[in-house]
């Protein structure tokens, strides 16, 4: 297996001078890691630091095929577009757009062609023209996962992807992540308190 992500010890300092320290993390291609820790430990912050959404003040992040991201440096657009893909806890769909158009918006933001993948795979083939908010939470989260697959980034960071889902929908989302992992040989980090996810994981990292 080859490394897709190598993050040294990162430190993120907030404006109130509070600092969070995160351990080194190495992610192999085809590996899914569960990031566990109590609320406030900084799971989301760590993920966002790796994704280039918040600056870190010590350490480096390497992603295979991309220039190293150094402390204090702003992540380039290409990092956010192609190196890391984010699956946020809430889907944040544009309520003015249909489901298919929301996928089109994501592709446009990433600078890639509109997705050819079908919503049929999610059992939502007939709902592409509907507004995202007309779907159930489980359906929305599956489309949210599908959207994070766009661009086939080597690293996928999923932030509490099953937090509000029942067992059936949580399993469906995890099955999607697992299928994507196997197909694309990327690395996935999932932050969650959800013990239902443990069987899907290759490794567990605990912080805080």
């Amino acid at each position, binding site marked *: 297996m080859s490394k897709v992500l190598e993050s040294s010890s990162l430190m993120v300092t907030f404006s109130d001078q509070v600092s969070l320290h995160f351990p080194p993390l190495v992610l192999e291609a085809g590996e899914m890691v569960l990031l566990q820790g109590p609320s406030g430990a900084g799971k989301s912050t760590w993920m966002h630091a790796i994704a280039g959404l918040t600056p870190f003040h010590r350490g480096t992040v390497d992603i295979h095929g991309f220039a190293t991201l150094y402390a204090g440096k702003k992540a380039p657009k290409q990092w*956010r*577009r192609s190196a890391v893909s984010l699956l946020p806890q809430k889907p944040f769909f544009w*309520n003015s757009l249909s489901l298919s158009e929301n996928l089109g918006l994501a592709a446009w933001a990433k600078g890639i062609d509109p997705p050819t993948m079908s919503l049929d795979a999610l059992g939502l083939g007939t709902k592409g023209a509907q507004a995202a908010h007309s779907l159930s939470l489980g359906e929305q989260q599956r489309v949210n996962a599908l959207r994070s697959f766009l661009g086939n980034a080597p690293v996928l960071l999923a932030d509490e992807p099953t937090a509000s889902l029942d067992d059936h929908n949580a399993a469906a989302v995890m099955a999607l992540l697992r299928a994507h992992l196997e197909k694309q040989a990327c690395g996935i980090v999932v932050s969650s308190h959800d013990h239902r996810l443990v069987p899907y994981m290759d490794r567990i990292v605990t912080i805080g």
Partner: protein
Amino acid sequence: MKAFYFASRALWHRRTTGLFIALVWALGLLGIAATGRMERSLEGQLTQTLEGTDLLLTAKGSPTQAILANLFHIDEPTGNIGREEAEKWLTHPDLAHIRRLAYGDNLHGQRILGCDSATWTHIPIRTLQGNWPSAPMEVAISEAIAQKEGLHIGATFHGGHGTVEDLGNHDDHDYKVVGIFSSRTPLWNTLILTTIQSVWTVHEDDQDAYTAVLARIKNPMTRLMMPGQIQRNSTFMAVSPAMEANRMMGWLNQGGQVIRAMSWLLTLIAALSLVLLLQSHIRERLADYALVRAMGGSWGQIAGLVLWQNILLALAAITLTYLGLLVAFYLQSYWLPEGIWLNETVWWDLKFDLPWLLLHLFLAVFAGIGPWIWLQKIPLHRALVDS
């Protein structure tokens, strides 16, 4: 074009507020556009109507009323002047192109104007069937009046007394149509033209009287001096139409400036509303925009999403403005006298609009810059976590 599409959908999603702002904006633009057009149109008509007329002699009264009545034919004349006294002045060697007018009657509110033959050469004619009147009780009517009244060459009718309807008919005198014309200047198309003798025939009391005399003054120095000289040495009023017209245009311009100032105020309010609308929309959907940035959306793409929304609103306001101008143009017959209807060529001369159109598009873009910069500066981590 994707940014345009996504922005248009976002705008459509909050179309009620958007339409309200576009309407306020359009009201401002309509004020600016309509005032400019009315001024240009009226100025053009004024220049055309006053051409070749440096002197107006009529009964004492309001100079403005005298001009409106005897040159624009839209107000009541100030009265009559004595023929004998007037003729004495008309022998002045600097006077040329003298036209004598006598008002008396109307046909269903359309004025019957007695003129001497010099008037016929003064009318900018497009077509003339038949002849100009040459004998008492002969009339020439415009095509519009012929159509409206169902008159043709050879037809006869009775006039009503005065310049307005319902003051009694002159049943014992028949006017006969000898000519049908169409003029390039709209005010002539509102008149029934006859000889001065016709008016004297119908109104036996007013024989040897003119309502007004119009003339050109050949010498520029005399042009300045003569009206005052006549005024001091006669029983009637002598007016320089050009000077009065300048004064009238001055009033119009002042009125126009007030309307323009209010219109600019409206457009500024609309622009401010635009900033607030966009700002509140972005605040409300902050995480949506943050996610677009998190997925790699560039500053240019975000600018497209934000600025297109404002540009689209500006285009909606401009479209509503032109619809308003169209309505105003076709409804002018209800609120303006026929003689001073706005000139179609001036009304639709769009090259005058280009500067303010560009300015308002710039304003739309400018109003979007603040929210866009703010959006560029928000910490993505906080926007996603706090939502």
